[in-house]
C-alpha cells in the first residue's frame, strides 16, 4: 500500500505531484478532504489535501509545495517507493450545492486544493468563475485543468510575467462589481485568504476558506489545529478545514503557524546537509 505510482515536478520544482495507491481512501474521499502522510519511521505526520482521486484505479493525488524538511523528504521519494503511513480521508468535505454564480479563488499551491472543488461546482451547473494567482509565471500551476473545470478563468501574477499584473483580489473586485456572486471559495496562503475575505465582506458575499493550521492526529484528539472562528475555538481537522472566512481570526492562525520556526529550520538544514 501507499506506493507512489506517478510523480511530477511542477512550478520549477518547487511543487511536486504524487499519485499514490490508497484504494480505501480513494473510494471514500470527497472534494475538500485531506490525508495525513508519514514518509518513514522517524517522519512527521503531514496533512495534505487530496487534489484528485481515482476510485477505480484506487489512487489519490497530492500536490505539495516544498517548504521544509518533511515536504523535501517527500519530494525525494521516487516512483515505486512508498509512504509508510497514509491516513484519511479526514476533515469535512466541502459543502457543494447549486447556487448560481460561484467564484473560486486560488493562490500558489492552494490552486491544487481548489481544483476538485471547482470542478464539482461546475458539474452541478453552477456558473463558475475561477481566479488563480502565483508570484510569477513559472510558479503557476494547473492552469489548463482550472480552465476546464470552470466557465471562466482569470490568471494573475504578482510580477506581471503572465496574465493580469496584480493580486487575485483586484480581479475579484471587478467580478463582484459585475456579477451576482452567491459564494466565494478562497484557498491559498493565509494572507491571501485574509485579503479575499476583507473584499468579500464589503460586498457581503459568503466566503469559504480552507485553513491549514499545524496538525498532529487529524482526528480531533489533540487540539493542535485549533483556530478561532466567530470567537469560538474550533478544531480544523474535524470541524473544518473549511470555515466561514468572515469569522476566522487569520492573524492568530498566522502566528500559530510560526510556532516551530526555529526547530523547522534546524531540521531542514540538517536534511539538506545530508
Amino acid at each position, binding site marked *: 500500500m501507499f506506493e507512489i505510482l506517478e510523480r511530477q515536478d511542477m512550478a520549477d520544482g518547487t511543487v511536486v505531484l504524487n499519485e499514490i495507491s490508497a484504494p480505501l*481512501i480513494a473510494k471514500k474521499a470527497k472534494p475538500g478532504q485531506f490525508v495525513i502522510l508519514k514518509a518513514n519511521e522517524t517522519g512527521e505526520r503531514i496533512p495534505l489535501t487530496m487534489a484528485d482521486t481515482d476510485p477505480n484505479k484506487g489512487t489519490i493525488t497530492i500536490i505539495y509545495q516544498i517548504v521544509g524538511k518533511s515536504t523535501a523528504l517527500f519530494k525525494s521519494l521516487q516512483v515505486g517507493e512508498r509512504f509508510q503511513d*497514509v491516513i484519511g480521508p479526514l476533515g469535512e468535505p466541502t459543502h457543494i450545492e447549486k447556487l448560481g454564480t460561484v467564484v473560486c479563488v486560488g493562490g500558489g499551491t492552494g490552486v491544487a486544493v481548489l481544483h476538485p472543488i471547482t470542478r464539482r461546482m461546475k458539474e452541478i451547473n453552477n456558473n463558475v468563475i475561477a481566479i488563480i494567482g502565483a508570484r510569477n509565471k513559472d510558479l503557476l500551476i494547473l492552469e489548463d485543468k482550472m480552465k476546464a473545470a470552470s466557465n471562466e478563468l482569470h490568471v494573475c501574477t504578482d510580477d506581471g510575467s503572465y496574465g493580469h499584473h496584480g493580486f487575485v483580489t483586484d480581479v475579484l473586485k471587478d467580478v463582484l462589481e459585475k456579477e451576482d456572486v452567491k459564494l466565494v471559495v478562497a484557498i491559498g496562503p493565509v494572507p491571501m485568504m485574509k485579503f479575499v475575505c476583507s473584499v468579500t465582506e464589503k460586498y457581503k458575499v459568503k466566503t469559504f476558506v480552507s485553513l491549514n493550521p499545524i496538525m498532529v492526529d487529524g482526528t480531533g484528539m489533540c487540539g493542535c489545529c485549533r483556530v478561532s472562528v466567530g470567537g469560538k475555538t474550533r478544531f480544523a481537522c474535524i470541524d473544518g478545514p473549511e470555515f466561514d472566512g468572515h469569522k476566522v481570526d487569520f492573524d492568530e492562525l498566522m502566528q500559530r503557524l510560526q510556532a516551530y520556526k526555529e526547530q523547522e529550520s534546524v531540521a531542514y538544514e540538517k536534511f539538506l546537509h545530508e
Partner: protein
Amino acid sequence: MTEKSSKKEKIPRQPMPEQDSQIRKRNFEEVPLGYTKELAVKEAERCLQCKKPSCMEGCPVSVDIPGFIKSIKEGDFAKAVRKIWERNALPAVCGRVCPQEIQCEGKCILGKKGDPVAIGNLEKFVADMEREHGNGDLPPKSALTGKRIAVVGSGPSGLTVAGDLVLKGHEVTIFEAFHKPGGVLVYGIPEFRLPKEIVYSEVNTLEKLGVKVECNTVVGKTVSMDELFEQGYDAIYVGVGAGLPRFLNIQGENLIGIYSANEYLTRANLMKAYLFPEYDTPLVRGKDVVVFGAGNVAMDSARTAMRLGADRVRIVYRRSRDEMPARSAEIHHAEEEGIEFFLLTAPTRFLGDGNARLTDVECLQMKLGEPDESGRRRPIPIEGSEFKLECDLAVIAVGAGANPLLTKSTEDLKINKWGYIVADPESGKTMKKGVWAGGDIVSGQATVILAMGAGRKASDSIHQYLTWGW
C-alpha cells in the same frame, strides 16, 4: 497460625530498586528497575495467603492474588504469570500503571497495621520474567468458528477483546486510527513509566495468535461501521477511548507554548519528539513549565517536561493534596524529581509577548468550601489573590471528553448528553445491533484495568451472541 503470621510481618515491604531521582529526571528510561528474584520471593513470603483474601475484592478483574503470589514464593514464576493471565492478559502493563493503593494493595490485610504486600511490583516481576525468559508458549486456541469480529481502537480494552475472542476461535481484526497500536499505552503514557517495547510485545503476541491489526484506519472516515457489517463482520467492539482534549476556556489559551496534554504527550511519546532532530516532530522545550491538573496525565506531562530540560516545572491544581487523583507512586516520583506543587490555585488567563508566545499565566488562590456533588470540598476563589507565574510552556491536563468523530458518523449508536456511548454495564451491548462498546468511550476517562474489565465482559457477551444470537 498467629505466631507464624506475626513472624512474617517482620519482613518489611521490599522497596522497589529505582533509578536515582537526580539522574532519571533527565532521561527517558524506566524509573523502577524491577525486583530481583530474591527480592520477589522475599516479598512474596510476606503474603499471609488469607482464606478470604480481601486484596481480591479490590481487584476489578478478580485476579487470584494469593494464588499467583504462592507460586512466586515457590519459585515457579511461569506458573505465577499463568495464574494472572486467567483474569488479566496484560500484567506487565497493569503491574506498572494500576492504582494499586486504592485497589488490591488498598485492601490487603497487612495494610491495616503496616505496609501491604507489594502486589503491583510482584505482578510486574512475573510478567517481565515471562517476557524476557519465558518459553514463548502461546495459550491454547479453540477450533475456528468462522465468525469475524472487528475491534475498533487498540487501547487496553480493544486488546483485551481481541485476545479473548481469538482464543475462542473467532477471526479478529483490530482497526486503529493511529499509525501504531496500543492506544493511550503508546501515545499517552511515557516511556519512563511504561516502555513501549512492552506494549508492542503484547500486540505481537496477539498477532501470533492470529489477530490482524490494521493501523491508519479511522473508523467513521476510512470505513464506516455499517460498511464493516457489509464486509461480513458479525460483531463490532468499539473501544475508541475518550480522546477529546479539555481546555480551560480562559483568555490567551491559543498562544504558542500552550498544549493540551494529549498533544504534548503524543508529540513526545508517539512521535518521539524527545529525540528531535533524529525524529522530525518538533516540540516546545520549555524552561519554565506549568502543568494544570493533578492526575496521572498531569504527572506524566510534568515529568516529561523535566526530562526535556526544564529548569522549573510546577503543577497547578485547584483542589488540595488529598484530592489529587494521580497514583500515589507518580506523585511521589514527581516530587523526588523536583516538580513543585501549587495547590488550591486556579489559572485565570494566559499572557503572551508580541509574537504570541506564552510568557505568564495569571492564577488565583482558592480555599476549600462545602463538599460538592462529587463529595469533594469545593474550591472557592479568594478575592484579590491573583499572582503571576512566569512560563514559556503550559500543558493542560484537566481531563478528557468524548471524541465525536465515530459517534457522529454512526447515527444509530446512542450517546448520552456528554457524548459517551450508551452501553449495558454488564454486557457492553449498545443500542445498535451487533455493536458492543467499552472502556473510556463508555465510562469517561478511567483506568487501564477498568477498560480491560469492560472488554472482558463484552467479549463474553459477544461470544454468547456469536454462539446463540442477540
